[in-house]
């Protein structure tokens, strides 16, 4: 066994061990399995958030964007920072309501706040439709990372199957506790690996950050500024705003906030998370080094820049460690997605057909759903071909559409009706689907308009239509008496 493969295998075994042992001393009820008994303190909520937010997409895609696009990549830390500022205000009321009503999923929140099981089902469908491609993305990343970093000794197919079996094992046994404990390993590994890469590589190839930037600027003038057209300032600002709003709408990110033991934990998290985002700086540095050192990676291959550069620069032992960090960026978010999607299937779908089911039974159903979902994701990863690509791009837009009805439900009573929320959501999601599958952009729809308008993120349109329909239908269906009581 080669050194790199040895390190990769050791870290997979370590994750599996941590994940399985995580449930020791806990009676694994639904409450423990799905939301950690709502007992996580500041440190664990921080580790879990950092663990699930920084995925293979950050590791490979962040460096890939820096490599392929330059300055537009900077939108990633921007939307994160704004999302955490928003989280300070929205998460405490969400947490309190969820704790009082013993909620386990995001769909639960909508169903309970709007007193509408139908809305709960709709949110459940949206959630699973967005989570499955996201899980597939993690598995694809895992396959690429392991096969690259084992120098081809393990095929992507073998890597995906091995990864998914480990995931199913520890998620079924430990639920969110498994995600939390493997996060500890992952967050430390990512921090150490990415910061080291971002410092060592520019030093070795250019003698420091500034000489590197100057060399790239000379070869590609304007690489570190946003272009006039396309990924321009107006694209940047609209995308940052839209992504910041959508950030906590991801069902697994939303549900992970339920694990906090009180609302202050979430406020402290809002102060800590932006700082952790600085790892992205070092991810970008790695992508920038690769611009002149491993040139010629085009399109989706840009995402390989970090891995290719690492293999060129380091010994197989080190390559194994970098690969292990990458492996963990797939496992931790993957595990949290599995917990969330399974909980949704049990609580928001299965329970419709078995209203008498108690939490004990729901916990069993949720755990049975884990291998089923995992198998579906593995098959989609290996046989989905390119059909999955529009779905991947769509996931973020799909969940962002939940924002209007969520924000309006933060007070004691929702400011919209359930009919309004459902209508708005349906319209928003339909537009998202049409735009994603049709490849619609504003520049194509209105070629003569100025780029300041046509570069806007198209998601803005879906969100605006969603909000307008929500408002109109809510006004039409609002019970008069409720307004009198106000």
């Amino acid at each position, binding site marked *: 066994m080669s050194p790199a493969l040895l390190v990769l295998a050791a870290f997979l075994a370590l994750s599996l061990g941590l994940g399985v042992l995580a449930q020791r001393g806990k009676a694994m009820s639904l409450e423990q399995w799905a939301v950690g008994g709502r007992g996580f303190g500041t440190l664990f909520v921080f580790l879990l958030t950092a663990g699930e937010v920084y995925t293979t997409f950050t590791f490979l895609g962040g460096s890939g964007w820096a490599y392929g696009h330059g300055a537009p990549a*900077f939108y990633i830390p921007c939307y994160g920072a*704004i999302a*955490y*500022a928003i989280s300070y*205000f929205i998460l405490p009321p969400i947490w309190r309501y969820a704790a009082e009503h013993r909620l386990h999923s995001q769909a639960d929140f909508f169903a309970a706040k709007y007193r509408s099981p139908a809305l709960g089902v709709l949110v459940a469908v949206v959630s699973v439709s967005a989570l499955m491609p996201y899980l597939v993305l993690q598995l694809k990343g895992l396959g690429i990372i392991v096969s690259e970093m084992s120098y081809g000794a393990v095929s992507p197919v073998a890597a995906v199957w091995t990864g998914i079996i480990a995931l199913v094992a520890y998620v079924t046994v430990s639920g969110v506790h498994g995600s939390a404990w493997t996060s500890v390993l992952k967050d430390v590994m990512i921090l150490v690996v990415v910061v080291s890469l971002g410092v060592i590589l520019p030093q070795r190839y250019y003698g420091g950050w500034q000489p590197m*930037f100057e060399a790239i600027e000379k070869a590609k003038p304007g690489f570190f500024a946003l272009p006039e057209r396309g990924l321009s300032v107006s694209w940047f600002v609209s995308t*940052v705003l839209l992504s*910041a709003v959508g950030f906590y709408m991801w069902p697994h990110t939303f549900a992970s906030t339920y694990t906090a033991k009180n609302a202050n934990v979430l406020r402290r998290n*809002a102060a800590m*998370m932006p700082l952790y985002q600085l790892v992205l700086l070092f991810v970008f540095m790695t992508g920038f080094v690769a611009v002149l050192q491993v040139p010629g990676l085009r399109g989706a291959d840009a995402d390989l820049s970090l891995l290719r550069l690492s293999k060129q620069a380091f010994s197989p032992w080190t390559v194994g460690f970098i690969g292990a960090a990458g492996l963990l960026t797939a496992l931790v978010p993957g595990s949290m997605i599995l917990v969330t999607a399974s909980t949704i299937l049990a609580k928001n779908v299965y329970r419709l057909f078995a209203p008498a089911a108690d939490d004990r039974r729901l916990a069993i159903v949720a755990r049975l759903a884990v291998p089923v979902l995992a198998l579906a994701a593995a098959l989609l990863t290996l046989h989905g071909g390119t059909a999955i690509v529009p779905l991947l791009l769509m996931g973020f837009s799909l969940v962002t559409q939940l924002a209007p009805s969520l924000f309006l439900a933060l007070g004691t009573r929702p400011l919209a009706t359930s009919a309004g929320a459902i209508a708005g959501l349906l319209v928003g999601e339909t537009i998202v689907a049409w735009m994603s599958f049709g490849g619609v952009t504003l520049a194509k729809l209105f070629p003569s308009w100025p780029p300041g308008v046509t570069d806007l993120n198209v998601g803005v349109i879906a969100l605006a239509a969603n909000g307008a329909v929500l408002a109109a239908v809510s006004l039409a269906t609002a019970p008069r008496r409720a307004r009198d009581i106000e």
Partner: protein
Amino acid sequence: MFRPRAHHLLALLPSVAILAGVPFANGVRGYVLGLPFLLFWILACVIATSAVMALLGALDRRNEAAAPPPTPGEPESGRP
């Protein structure tokens, strides 16, 4: 329940510095701390977000120690 206070407006500062500042920062050439100005500006905003949210947390905890919010389960109408 959440009670808006004047100091909560502070939370807007870093976000506005990003959204309104990037169009200007994008036009500035030169390096700060070895980073292109745009990247430096964005990182400064990110760090400022952490600092501001920590300050807000400290202020809110101090206010709540003086006047504790209703505990979960207590009816909302119970507050003055």
